[in-house]
């Protein structure tokens, strides 16, 4: 394919990777731990305001119905009830929820006229206590006129009439249909010796946080200003859209972040709950807290993950050389379309995986059904792509009689090919995929396991070994959200998707960092502390971290798309440069030396080559804060040592007009190799892990311990996706498992005794210090590896794994069928 458009901007990296670091690369204990592990965190439900009232929501029992009438008189009469709002009443004062699709789907914080999924809000009650609010919900009488329910994604493609969820978008539930071809797909398929074809099903699951989404809103009638405390992210990026929904100017909304905890994407924005709490607080004339309960969150949290059916083809040469892919995919988005097909923009970042495939065609049909809408979930659509391509590779190995390790080794992009432009136009910045593979193979005794597998089979036991070699793109540019839109849609120009921090040095020379995005369960404070300590050669214990609200915050995209560590490292590094320069200037006057002759030593600034001629950071800071005028005249040198720094996306380019090239939009690309060993009990369908190796390359590691934690946690998350988790809707659109007793996560008892983590470090040439993101990796690599291991275990029976999750019932059903067909 032509490469004319494929220019790679010059790197803006300022801090090169080093062979020896002061603070980076150390497995320092998390600075968040003391606060969180002693119960001192402030989560959404910990917020309490004077005179605060509590809200509960009445939810639709119907998947699709017109709201004929709502009688709230009995609820309003209940002692302790302050107000009851229907969707129609809320819509008089509050506009639709924020939505990034084009054209948008209209979603209100309380449904107006029509409900489109079970659990959608129909009315909300504000009362003196949550108890009374829930009692009142039971007293609201709603008459519904049921409409045809659409739950099957293939049926959704053809539904019309009353079965259409959003008739204003046309008489169809197809929200978007588009085929994009990258490279010479037809020619590559014509040149192929064989084409592997699989129908693959990736199930709907989601990030299910321990604390659900919550907001406590206050409306000040005197100033006309809202204050909303919430466990939202992106409040310093697109939080102003909540103000638009509430019909106030953005400066009349202050969003105060609470600790959000691990949410795995599900709290990416949380605009609906913030909008609802704000609407209710304004109506009630009192602060109002609304915290989703578990059923609220599972049925209506706007954060279900991808739900896809693929007809996938891989074209190969007989020697195993992979040439091209054709993917036809239907994705069930549920009842609304908040991020458009952002998840498929995301998947285009690495759709051909780590392999030297030169062309790909993707035929995407996004449909709307009567389910909770999709949101963000760890992987944001790329994890599905990893599953698809790895299943195709394994199928090709089977067909060609090739070894899965050698097949991968043959097709992995070689390390001298980076930076590498993959067929969609995205860039893989750096990598050494063969080194990752070799590291993983070095950690697992493959030969020994193959021997044990053979022995076990003689005893009627089924052991299997799987392998996946997958990409982990990190540091999104917002292009991914709109690149699939119809060309006639008003587009955007190149987005900066920045992250910001501010750093203040106190008069004793110690530092305070302010982040502009919330604590999200990762380790942002630890990352920021380590990077600042590196830059200023400062004791990490002398640095603390806080979080800005949206009144004081700078533009910050927040965590998501495995970008946060890279981006705050860039922002901290930039702020630290400003701090360093000012400290050097102050110190140069104090030491009567030229700034260029000075150096940072651990805890002080001194004259190079002159031991003892130095000032401690405390002395410099004190002088800068209080005694500036004691220093010689120095143009624009002012008191204090403070810096705010906005770090823009390190490297991104625009898509082409016709989208045959999507540009560079997700370029900081890590790699992983997962090798699980499982045993399947063929009588019960239960799967046990006998061993698990996961090797990741996320570039320069800021903290190997927390990164390993991410990998292990993500792997367990991936085990959930592979074996347990599935939002199960029945034919009438009822969510059958809206509780954590039925929606199953793996616990410690279901996970490998030791997920053995290995690291390879291939620094990025584009980010500060060469750091890459690593937050989503485990979940992006585990499902295909586990699927492969199970298929390998059941090879004597001829069982093929084409869908997830492989619950015991499903797996036993596949084995039963294979046995009936004479397998085994």
């Amino acid at each position, binding site marked *: 394919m032509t490469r004319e458009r494929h220019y790679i901007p010059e790197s803006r990296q300022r801090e090169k990777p080093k062979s020896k670091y002061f603070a980076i690369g150390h497995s320092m204990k998390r600075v968040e731990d003391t606060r969180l592990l002693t119960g001192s965190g402030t989560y959404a439900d910990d917020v309490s305001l004077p005179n605060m009232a509590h809200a509960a929501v009445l939810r639709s029992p119907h998947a699709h119905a017109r709201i004929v009438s709502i009688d709230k008189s009995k609820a309003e009469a209940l002692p302790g009830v302050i107000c009851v709002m229907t969707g129609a009443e809320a819509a008089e004062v509050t506009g639709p929820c924020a939505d990034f699709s084009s054209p948008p789907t209209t979603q209100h914080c309380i449904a107006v006229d029509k409900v489109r999924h079970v659990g959608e809000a129909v009315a909300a009650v504000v009362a003196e206590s*949550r*108890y009374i609010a*829930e*009692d009142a919900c*039971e007293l609201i009488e709603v008459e519904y006129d049921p409409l045809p329910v659409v739950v099957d994604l293939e049926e959704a493609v053809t539904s019309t009439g009353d079965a259409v969820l959003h008739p204003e978008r046309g008489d169809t539930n197809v929200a978007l249909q588009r085929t994009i071809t990258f490279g010479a797909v037809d020619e590559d398929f014509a040149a192929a010796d064989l084409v592997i074809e699989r129908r693959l099903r990736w199930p709907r699951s989601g990030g299910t946080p321990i604390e659900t989404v919550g907001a406590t809103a206050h409306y000040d009638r005197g100033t006309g200003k809202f204050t909303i405390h919430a466990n939202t992210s992106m409040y310093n990026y697109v939080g102003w859209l909540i103000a638009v929904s509430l019909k106030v100017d953005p400066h009349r909304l202050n969003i105060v972040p609470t600790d959000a905890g691990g949410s795995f994407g599900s709290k990416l924005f949380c605009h609906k709950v913030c909008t609802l709490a704000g609407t209710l607080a304004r109506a009630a004339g009192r602060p109002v807290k609304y915290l989703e*309960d*578990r*059923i609220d969150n599972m049925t209506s949290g706007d954060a279900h993950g991808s739900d896809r059916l693929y007809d996938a083809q891989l074209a190969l040469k007989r020697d195993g050389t992979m040439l091209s892919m054709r993917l036809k995919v239907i994705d069930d988005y549920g009842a609304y379309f908040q991020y458009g097909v952002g998840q498929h923009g995301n998947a285009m970042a690495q759709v051909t995986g780590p392999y030297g495939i030169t062309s790909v065609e993707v035929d995407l049909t996004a449909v709307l059904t009567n389910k909770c809408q999709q949101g963000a979930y760890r992987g944001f659509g790329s994890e599905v792509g990893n599953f698809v391509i790895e299943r195709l590779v394994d199928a090709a190995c089977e067909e060609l009689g090739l070894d899965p390790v050698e097949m991968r080794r043959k097709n992995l992009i070689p390390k001298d090919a980076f930076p590498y432009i993959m067929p969609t136009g995205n860039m893989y910045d750096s990598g050494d995929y063969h080194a990752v593979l070799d590291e993983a193979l070095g950690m697992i005794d493959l030969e020994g396991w193959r021997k044990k597998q053979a022995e076990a089979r003689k005893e009627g036991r089924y052991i299997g070994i799987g392998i996946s070699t997958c990409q982990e793109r990190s540091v999104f540019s917002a292009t991914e959200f709109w690149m699939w839109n119809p060309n006639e849609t008003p587009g955007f120009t190149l987005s900066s998707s920045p992250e910001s921090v501010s750093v203040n040095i106190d008069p004793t020379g110690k530092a305070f960092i302010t982040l502009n995005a919330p604590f999200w369960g990762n380790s942002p404070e630890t990352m920021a502390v380590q990077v600042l300590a590196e830059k200023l050669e400062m004791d990490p214990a002398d640095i603390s971290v806080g979080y800005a609200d949206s009144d004081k915050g700078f533009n910050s995209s927040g965590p998501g798309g495995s970008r946060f560590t890279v981006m705050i490292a860039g922002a901290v590094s930039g702020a630290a440069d400003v701090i360093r320069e000012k400290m050097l200037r102050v110190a140069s006057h104090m030491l009567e030396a030229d700034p260029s002759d000075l150096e940072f030593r651990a805890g002080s600034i001194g004259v190079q080559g002159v031991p003892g001629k130095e000032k401690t950071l405390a002395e410099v800071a004190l002088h800068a804060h209080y005694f500036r005028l004691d220093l010689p005249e120095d143009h624009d040198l002012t008191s204090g040592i403070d810096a705010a720094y906005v770090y823009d996306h390190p490297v991104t380019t625009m898509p082409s007009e016709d989208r045959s090239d999507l540009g560079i939009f997700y370029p900081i690309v890590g790699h992983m190799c997962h090798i699980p060993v499982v045993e399947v009990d063929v*009588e*019960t*369908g*239960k799967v046990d892990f006998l061993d698990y190796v996961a090797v990741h390359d996320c570039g320069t590691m800021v903290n190997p311990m927390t990164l390993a934690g991410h990998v292990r946690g993500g792997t367990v998350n991936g085990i959930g996706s592979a074996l*347990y988790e599935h939002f*199960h809707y*029945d034919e009438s659109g009822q969510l*059958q*498992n809206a*509780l954590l*007793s*039925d929606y*199953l996560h*793996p*616990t410690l*008892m*279901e996970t490998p005794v030791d997920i053995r983590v290995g690291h390879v470090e291939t620094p990025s040439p584009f980010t500060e210090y060469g750091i890459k993101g690593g937050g989503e990796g485990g979940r992006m690599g585990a499902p295909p590896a586990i699927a492969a291991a199970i298929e390998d275990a059941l090879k004597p029976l001829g069982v093929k794994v084409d869908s997830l999750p492989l*619950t*015991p*019932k499903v797996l*036993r*059903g596949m084995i*039963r069928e294979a046995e009936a067909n004479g397998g085994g």
Partner: protein
Amino acid sequence: MKPPPFDYHCPETLDEALALLAEHGEAAKVLAGGQSLVPMLNLRAVHPEVLIDINRLPGLDHVRIEDGELRIGALARHRAVLESPAVREASPLMAAAYPYVSHGPIRNRGTLCGNLCHNDPASEMPAVALASDAEMMLQSASGARTVGAEEFFTGTLSTAAGADELLVEVRVPQAPAGQGAAFHEVSPRKGDFAYVAVGAVVSLSGGACSGARIVCAGVGDGPHRARAAEDALEGAAPGEGAFRQAAAAAADSIDPGEDFHADADYRRDLVRSLTRRALADAASRCH
């Protein structure tokens, strides 16, 4: 997820508790460990007007052997039963089943008697009680009566206990000397309610199986005794062939329900394999 309003009573004596039950009857629910009741309240799946908290009643937390019976009081927590040497001595089947009962924190609060009264069809202990000919000691303000396990478990979440009655104790006859017992279960995750659980006891007499009891949980509207399987085993020489035959009979004896976790075919498969495994283990433990 907040419970609907209810009145709360916390009697200090058994008589007081029984008087409250007599007064409120169907409108009341007994609160012991609360591990099933409280979630049901929070989900508003039940709307009792009155909760009678029996946690302060004295002398009901015993686990002991008396008159050849294992006696377990209404307030004996799962944790205490699980760890009791009396249980291991008198009821190897219960001892074998207990590791499958829920999770640590739930076992710390939940009670065996509450578990039996709740009669969740996927619960282990009703099946154990059925296999063991346990007797339920019920008391009300108007008197006491004893109900055998066979009659006690009447269907999903229902028992023969009257609205005014309290299960004050369960009595399990001491297992015959030499009997082997085993319990096998498949649940989605460790500690979850079973997809299917199978408990088996068997004795060996003159080289042949005798007096086997085979019970299943998770296969219908309450604990299920697979009599056809027991009959198939009676007098048979212990071994893979006999166990397979009994397992097939057990699988044929059930008419399991379906939900999204497990369909009927899957439950039948599990009864078949778990019965075979349980019998093999039980037979190997005969002495």
